[in-house]
């Protein structure tokens, strides 16, 4: 086995897979995409100069791979439903996916959060996953996304506000449906 692959796998695989999974919300798709990430990483490893950390470089490739996946999904969807404008929320096509067992086993609040994340913009969702699920620093997140630190802070702030609203809305809906 290639030593580069082995080294990267040991150091980052769990985190990179989890990041992709929370981005695309589909285990099989995440398994395919993580392969794409390693292919890109291994094809360009010789050119990696160490200006950024190996970790953020790898996550940045993972991010590009998932974004590319969303774009292809959108195109596919557009072909099927050309008259239906889904706007910027193209990745919502994945929302029909069944809840994976890891999430289904969790309490109701976690399951709501899993759905609410999907209502954020792609940038907001990416920042929130990297910051709070992957526990990356603001600086690392900025490197992965090619954003400035202040842009990450703004996106994070807006994303958290949005999540707060969505979670409260979900609670309201829950109350309404129970009182009916």
């Amino acid at each position, binding site marked *: 086995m290639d030593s580069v692959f082995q080294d990267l796998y040991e150091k980052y695989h769990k985190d990179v897979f989890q990041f992709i999974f929370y981005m695309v919300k589909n285990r099989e798709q995440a398994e395919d995409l993580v392969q794409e990430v390693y292919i890109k990483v291994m094809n360009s490893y010789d050119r990696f100069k160490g200006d950024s950390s190996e970790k953020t470089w790898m996550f940045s490739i993972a991010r*590009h791979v998932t*974004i590319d996946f969303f774009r*292809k999904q959108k195109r596919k969807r557009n072909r099927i439903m050309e008259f239906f404008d889904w706007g910027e929320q193209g990745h919502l096509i994945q929302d029909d996916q069944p809840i994976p067992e890891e999430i289904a086993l969790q309490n109701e609040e976690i399951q709501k959060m899993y759905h609410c994340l999907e209502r954020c913009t792609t940038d907001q969702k990416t920042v929130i996953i990297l910051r709070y*699920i992957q526990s990356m620093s603001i600086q690392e997140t900025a490197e992965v996304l090619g954003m400035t630190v202040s842009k990450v802070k703004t996106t994070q702030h807006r994303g958290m506000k949005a999540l*707060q609203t969505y979670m409260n809305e979900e609670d309201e809906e829950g109350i309404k449906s129970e009182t009916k």
Partner: protein
Amino acid sequence: MKRNKNHSSDSIKDLLKSMPNVEDRQNSEELYRKISDKRNKELQRRSKRKKMATGWGIGLASVAATILFFIAVLPSMTQEQAYDTSSSDESAEVSRDQAEYKAQNKNEMDRSSNTNAQEESASSEKTEANFRDAMSTESSLISRVVKDNEKEQHAIAAFGDLQGQYVVPITFSVTQEVKSIDELYNSLDAFEEEVWGVRKYQFSSVSFDINEEEGVVLVNFPEDYDFPESSTQENIFIMSLKEMFSPLDVTTIKLETDGEPGVNLGNNTGLEEIDIYGESLYKLYTPQNGPKLFISIPISQGLTVEEALNELKVDEPTFTIEGTIPKELEIIDVKPDGEFLEVNFNVANTIDGEQQMLTMIESILMTSKQFGFTQIKFNNLPHSEIGKYDLTKPISVPYSVNPMPLQQSSP
């Protein structure tokens, strides 16, 4: 009964941090095997593509020979047709071209059947036929636009004109599903610029990552990329990138060198982004050695669509560019209505050649598209139908200009 928790920022953070770990069920050996298989397949595809691109190059050499042949014979033929007083009538010219093409094709086919022609010869004939088909309409007129359709995917390669003033976009199309848009753009290579009378393609060594979701194209240049140094070259460089991606759903082109943000142009060090905005005119580029192609000419901000269309009358002989609307034809007015535009001509005027009229229609369609119009209705033209266009009805604007076949070079 449920209680509204009214989530705070802290409780949201806590919830996010409690999201469960999700692990990959593929073990490292299994994953490595799958990756190796995919990498090997990719290498095989690239090698195949390279071979086919070479084959396509050989085919284009034959097209070059044919075009040069027409250029050589055309003046004498024009003299023979002394009764034809209209020097700008492309229709006659095209008919002659087509006749010569047919004659030449027939000769080549005869030769092929008689002499057990080699594979390369067959490939050349196919390329010639496809080249002609890509630019022709059913009525033997040359159409220079590409219509958007569900069955095809298009990528545009942009080339500087020989004078280094403007950009000539050329559109390559493949059947949907054959390639993704990224793959298609990244496979643009091996052109015959001399045949087309344009400058060398600048982006063969560059990788494109197109993200229509975010409206961004990421263009990554290799470290040793030879960036333009003069302002003229720089202009062509920027205009080319804009032209290549303007029909896509993107607004920003992000530039990187070897994965790091920014490129160093002569007058623009550390340029990180180009915004795709601004309008262009589409006139006819007529290089001495090469086919007539639409050329994109940027226009100054604030110009109205009517002013832009009137600008289409102006020739630019210094740059071998012809206006596409005959001088004698008057656009009385234009009536915009949302994305719909009516163009009213002076009924008294006529247009001699059908080809000239078709070129004018397509030039107006493309130029109007730049102003956000999607449907154009032409009023008071001397014909009710030209080429594939029914002029009694509004016409949808095309996707892009200058179609070239790429299908035969695709895996």
